[in-house]
């Protein structure tokens, strides 16, 4: 396959000097990963996990390998701020770490936080098991590509027993460059036993650009560790964002994810959760609000492996105009994972005739004494409720907004602090159509 995309990635591998290059095992891992990617090519819609996300358009696009100015481009300071958030901050502009915009001084005890580029250059050995590994189940072409080309990312470690409530704020900013470029970020987040971490992963974009970002993140939660993760995806309108986040939870660890998908032309997030330890628990809530021709795909794959594990997923989606939303929630309860409790709810609203949402809940159970509930719907706004509200004096648009907002709000409960939740709600509202199209 010599398409524009693949060719531009091959070229990138040739010309780019990646941090840590010259280290034997790393060079080998990168070369092997590139071969793997070139052999596999881009995933097609026959692949279950890519069924509704076609990459034909992407495959024909070529991207520059690097933005030479990324280290010095001016960034609007207000983009870096979140209400009531004043913890450590790690900022990447077009994939490049920016020390000048980050806040890494006076880190709290027990927190180690560094950009990948620096870690690879200075002490790469601890990352070897992550970068050089070949997990059998991971045949994802973009993870291979990420291993081959990742030039930066986040390396975060919370020591046993340390409680980082901060939270830590990671920002990926896309800004216009000479042309559209591709960047690949690899992140490794590790929580020791009894460690707590609040973390915000924030994607923002400014002005018009159509960059391609490929992120792969690993989260490892030690025994009784607790992770509160908020992902706000508010990339530039034309951007492409492909992400794969993998969570491993040990005994009694508890992960909590809130995800807000708002921006980008094509955005996909594959979330893999392995509840390895007994009593491990993963809660996830998320919402997308789409318009124009946006395409957003969330693949949530949860595997209960330990005993008495729990997962609770509540996702909402709203699509207007000609937007396309995809939600795939697959829960597997492995043999021996007795006592698992799995809940999955996915509800969606179509605001226009041309919008489309595909939802596929899937449940596979191989264990005993399992409690499992799942449901998925795609519907329109309740006309009776709209008339009721209008008959009380609310303008049709306001009534629609109120209904849509109420619909999405359940996905935002639990975001702390309150100012941040309100901010998230306001962001979501701003992405909803003010002139909601004619009722379907």
């Amino acid at each position: 396959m010599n398409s524009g995309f693949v060719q531009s990635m091959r070229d990138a591998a040739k010309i780019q000097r990646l941090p840590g290059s010259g280290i034997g095992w790393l060079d080998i891992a990168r070369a092997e990963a590139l071969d793997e990617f070139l052999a596999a090519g881009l995933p097609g819609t026959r692949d279950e996990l890519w069924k509704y996300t076609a990459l034909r358009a992407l495959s024909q696009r070529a991207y520059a390998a690097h933005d030479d100015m990324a280290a010095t481009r001016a960034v609007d300071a207000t983009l870096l701020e979140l209400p009531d958030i004043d913890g450590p901050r790690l900022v990447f502009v077009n994939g490049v770490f920016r020390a000048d915009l980050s806040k890494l001084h006076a880190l709290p005890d027990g927190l180690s936080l560094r950009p990948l580029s620096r870690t690879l250059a200075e002490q790469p050995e601890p990352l070897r098991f992550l970068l050089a590994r070949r997990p059998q189940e991971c045949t994802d072409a973009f993870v291979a590509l990420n291993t081959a080309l990742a030039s930066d990312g986040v390396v975060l470690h919370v020591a046993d027993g340390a409680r980082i409530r901060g939270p830590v704020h990671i920002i990926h900013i896309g800004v216009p460059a000479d042309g559209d470029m591709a960047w690949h970020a690899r992140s490794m987040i590790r929580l020791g036993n009894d460690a707590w971490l609040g973390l915000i992963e924030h994607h923002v974009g400014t002005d018009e650009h159509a960059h391609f970002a490929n992120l792969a993140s690993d989260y490892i939660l030690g025994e009784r560790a607790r992770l509160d993760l908020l992902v706000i995806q508010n990339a530039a309108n034309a951007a492409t964002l492909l992400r794969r986040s993998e969570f491993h939870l040990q005994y009694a660890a508890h992960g909590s994810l809130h995800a807000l998908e708002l921006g980008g032309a094509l955005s996909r997030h594959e979330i893999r959760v392995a509840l390895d330890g007994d009593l491990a628990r993963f809660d996830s809530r998320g919402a997308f609000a789409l318009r124009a021709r946006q395409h957003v795909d969330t693949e949530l794959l949860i595997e209960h492996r330990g005993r008495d594990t729990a997962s609770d997923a509540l996702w909402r989606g709203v699509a207007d105009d000609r937007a396309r939303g995809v939600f795939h929630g697959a829960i597997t309860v492995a043999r021996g994972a007795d006592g698992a409790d799995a809940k999955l709810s996915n509800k969606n609203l179509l605001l226009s005739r041309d919008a489309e949402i595909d939802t596929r809940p899937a449940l596979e159970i191989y264990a005993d004494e399992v409690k499992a509930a799942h449901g998925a719907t795609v519907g329109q706004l309740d006309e009776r409720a709209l008339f009721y509200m209008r008959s009380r004096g609310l303008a049709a648009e306001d009534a629609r907004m109120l209904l849509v907002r109420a619909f999405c709000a359940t996905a935002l409960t639990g975001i702390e602090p309150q100012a941040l939740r309100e901010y998230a709600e306001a962001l979501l509202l701003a992405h909803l159509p003010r002139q909601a199209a004619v009722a379907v």
Partner: protein
Amino acid sequence: MLKIDNLHVRVAGREILRGLSLQVNVGEVHAIMGPNGAGKSTLGHVLAGHEGYEVTQGSVTYDEKNLLDMAPEQRAAAGVFLAFQYPVEIPGVNNTYFLRAALNAQRKAHGNAELDSMEFLKLVREKLKVMQLSPELLNRAVNEGFSGGEKKRNEIFQMAVLEPRLAILDETDSGLDIDALQRVAEGVNTMRAPQRAFIVITHYQRLLDYIVPDFVHVLADGRIVESGDATLAHELEAHGYAWVAERKLAEAGA
């Protein structure tokens, strides 16, 4: 105030109202009675502006304006209020928030300043006393998980807060026990005023023992077939709706 002239309304291809005429003056209370399927609820929905009802003939004038040209929210701002027979549950929308948004939308339409949450709370407390509604219901989602009686009382409570000029009560008595019925009627009676008119739609005379109307109309087969004062309701209760139909036949034969 309200003049309905020869109104014909079609719903899902069926003609439900066939030449209904009715005049309501300010300060009056009109009861509309009639058998099931006569078109009583259709009348309420058409007046409130439901888009599923197609007016094929006739006119409705409200305060010298063509009511049928107005959107539901414009009618609300002009003082028209429909207490629903089946109030709608709206999960996720707080009852108080909803009512304040509605009131402020109406105030804005009149060029009045919006009430802030403190001012609104004060107003709500006053009105709550009248309706004997539990304040706890205000913090729940609109009508969600309310009992039948609570839903109906919530409708009257909304009416008390919005202070409409023309209130249409669509079978507000249905599904209420006698205590709830009395409380709803009390709420309505405290709202009776010279500047306000009511159209009370009901199947039974029972409600009219508590809300005594100035006029009673019998709606059958899509039009008003009989009008009278409050005693007409008692005659209907005694003889049944068939009695009206028979008298009409006799008149026609005479």
